[in-house]
């Protein structure tokens, strides 16, 4: 079915700075010219694809787990309001405080106020997509509060004044030599003789962050899962920086999108199998921390949870598009995507890159704000094959393209190039004689083909189609002509 998406009472994110950038074709063209970037990405994604495949192959009920994961997320969304209220009640009953935020600005204001109340002007942070999305670090900085990223890749991005380019490994676009240079330039007190050995680089980060952890009074985290039934929050990580932040400070502030719930404690038995194998390609990630409100005498005694909308309810309003909210941020779809592997995460202009980003970001911002992302895919389907909760990303992309074309038609006098081309193709292919004539005429198109047999630019009015696509030059002989020549007349 197609659903129209106009005039619903939900609101897309208003502050979209971290969810959209320049048009994808422009950014992609620049990224494709960067050979170093492509080499770094190719190497890293090849490694992680092989690791994932090996540990997924070990699990003989993988498909059953995926189906359960998909269904659990659908069930979560169907009663999201009830689950949120249940979560709030459970967290509150265990001594935590729950806050709600309609958008990025409101979430940032809540967190800033909570940090101010502690008197601290510094926070340590666990890697969190939600706080990236709302630009929390910048908001805290403008309030005079320094936010220190403690995940190694996030630290590399932060010290390098860079932007994250991958959901799991935000510095995937950097190789070891580049990271050494960033550390030598930006890390206070670093050994100037630091080599580019990954172990040495990781140890440099350990030394730099150790004193920060031991003295930190406030931490900010995201959450991988929240259990509505019990009020339990979970953070899945590898380095131990998460445990440091979740355990040592007095105050813990967790920012979480409203879609990250699971209904029941038992449901984690599914996701704790799906996530690590899909994400880092491990049977289990080194550390998972779970906490339910406040535990007297153990860990932070001042515990907050900020529930963030920021365009999620607008996404939920689209019966087809809401499936993007099922995402558990494993990033397997990035690692298998031929487009992501070549252009990298920055080209998507959003903190959510890759296939899932191409369906999530435009829905969070509204499609018209992010119109090129649904086209940033060849629709090959590899993302659906690896998605641990079976999000049908190719169908969502097509759905969003249709929305874009519809909205374009509603707001522009001239239809979009895709609409023109598809309408023309429909007219030609709808009649056998027209189709045969077009194929004969198509032979002339060979004149436009370059040496590689592709047409890089069609003449107007068809130039819109080739502005971000190459078109194969038509063959010298159509299939129908070949059949007629070798097998006689078409019956």
């Amino acid at each position, binding site marked *: 079915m197609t659903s129209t998406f106009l005039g619903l009472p939900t609101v897309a994110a208003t502050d979209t700075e971290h969810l959209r950038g320049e048009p994808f074709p422009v950014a992609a063209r620049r990224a494709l010219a960067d050979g170093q970037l492509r080499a770094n990405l190719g190497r890293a994604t090849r490694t992680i694809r092989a690791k994932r495949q090996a540990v997924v192959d070990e699990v003989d009920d993988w498909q059953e787990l995926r189906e359960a994961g998909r269904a659990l997320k659908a*069930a979560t969304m169907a009663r999201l309001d009830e689950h949120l209220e249940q979560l*709030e009640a459970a967290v509150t009953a265990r001594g935590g405080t729950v806050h*709600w935020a309609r958008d990025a600005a409101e979430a940032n204001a809540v967190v800033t106020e909570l940090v101010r109340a502690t008197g601290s002007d510094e926070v340590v942070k666990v890697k969190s997509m939600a706080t990236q999305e709302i630009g929390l670090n910048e908001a805290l900085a403008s309030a005079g509060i320094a936010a220190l990223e403690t995940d190694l890749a996030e630290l590399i991005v932060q010290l390098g004044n860079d932007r994250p380019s991958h959901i799991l490994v935000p510095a995937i676009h950097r190789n*070891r030599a580049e990271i050494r240079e960033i550390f030598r330039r930006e890390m206070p007190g670093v050994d100037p003789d630091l080599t580019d050995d990954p172990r040495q680089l990781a140890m440099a980060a350990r030394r730099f962050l150790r004193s920060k952890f031991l003295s930190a009074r406030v931490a900010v985290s995201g959450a991988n899962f929240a259990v509505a039934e019990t009020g339990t929050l979970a953070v899945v990580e590898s*380095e131990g920086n998460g445990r440091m932040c979740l355990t040592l400070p007095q105050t813990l502030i967790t920012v979480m999108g409203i879609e990250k719930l699971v209904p029941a404690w038992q449901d984690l038995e599914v996701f704790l*199998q799906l996530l690590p194998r899909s994400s880092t390609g491990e049977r289990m990630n*080194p550390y*998972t921390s779970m906490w339910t409100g406040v535990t*007297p005498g153990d860990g932070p005694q001042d515990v907050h949870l900020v529930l963030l909308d920021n365009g999620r*309810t607008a996404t939920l309003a689209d019966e087809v598009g809401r499936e993007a909210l099922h995402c558990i941020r494993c990033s397997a779809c990035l690692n298998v995507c031929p487009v992501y592997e070549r252009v990298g995460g920055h080209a998507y202009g959003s903190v959510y890159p890759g296939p899932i980003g191409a369906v999530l970001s435009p829905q969070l911002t509204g499609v018209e704000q992010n119109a090129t992302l649904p086209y940033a895919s060849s629709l090959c389907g590899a993302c659906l094959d690896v998605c641990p909760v079976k999000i049908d990303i190719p169908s969502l992309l097509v759905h969003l393209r249709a929305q874009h074309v519809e909205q374009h038609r509603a707001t522009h006098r001239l239809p979009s190039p895709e609409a023109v081309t598809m309408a023309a193709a429909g007219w030609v292919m709808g009649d056998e004689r027209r189709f045969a004539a077009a194929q004969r005429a198509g032979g002339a198109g060979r004149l436009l083909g370059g040496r590689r047999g592709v047409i890089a630019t069609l003449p107007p009015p068809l130039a819109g189609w080739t502005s971000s696509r190459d078109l194969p030059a038509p063959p010298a002989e159509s299939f129908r002509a070949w059949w007629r020549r070798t097998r006689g007349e078409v019956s």
Partner: protein
Amino acid sequence: MTSGGVTARDEVLGRVRAALGELRGTLPGVPRSYHGAGAGPVDLDLLVDRLRDYHALVRTNGDGHTVAGLLADAVRERGARSFVVPAGVPPAWLEALGSGVLVDDGTLTPVDLDAVDGVVTGCALAIAETGTIVLDASADQGRRLLSLVPDYHLCVVREEDVVATVPDAVARLDPTRPLTWISGPSATSDIELERVEGVHGPRTLEVILVPAAADPRPPSTPGQSSEAPVQS
């Protein structure tokens, strides 16, 4: 926070209800045809294999050692001088660890713990399939920071506390307790996705796997898995 008199809470919940429309509350079925809790036997060799695969050290009592003997061996070989233990560890462990032991009384700070060489704890359970140990802050495991700050974590796992799979673990754990799932030493793959072990958590994880008979405990300090760590 309010704007125009409507709280953020009410507005977000209202948006959710509006977004769901007539479909709200319909509950799609959840097929649980995967292997659930109790589906298979516990394989101790698999646990040892999976722990070692992620570079945890493992000692078993193949030659009939008690846990005290294995602890003493581990400490001697490690060359660690100072240890911290939670308040509820069995007396036999304390004897094996010798004089350099600090018992957590709830006041040790992260800086204090940074100065000790290692920590010895029990665990709530271990998962064979994934090589994971889970701590739930029971008396023999203590506060979460104990097993985090020191660089060497020595963990006693009783064979009776090993479960086969993740669903088995979830079925046995109490989510209202603070839980720490540990699979090998801390690690990162953030540089070119190459795994480097030992970042912020303990750089060495050593597991002592023994039958309960080799880890005698006075009646007052059995697993204590149902007691809160510190009740205020």
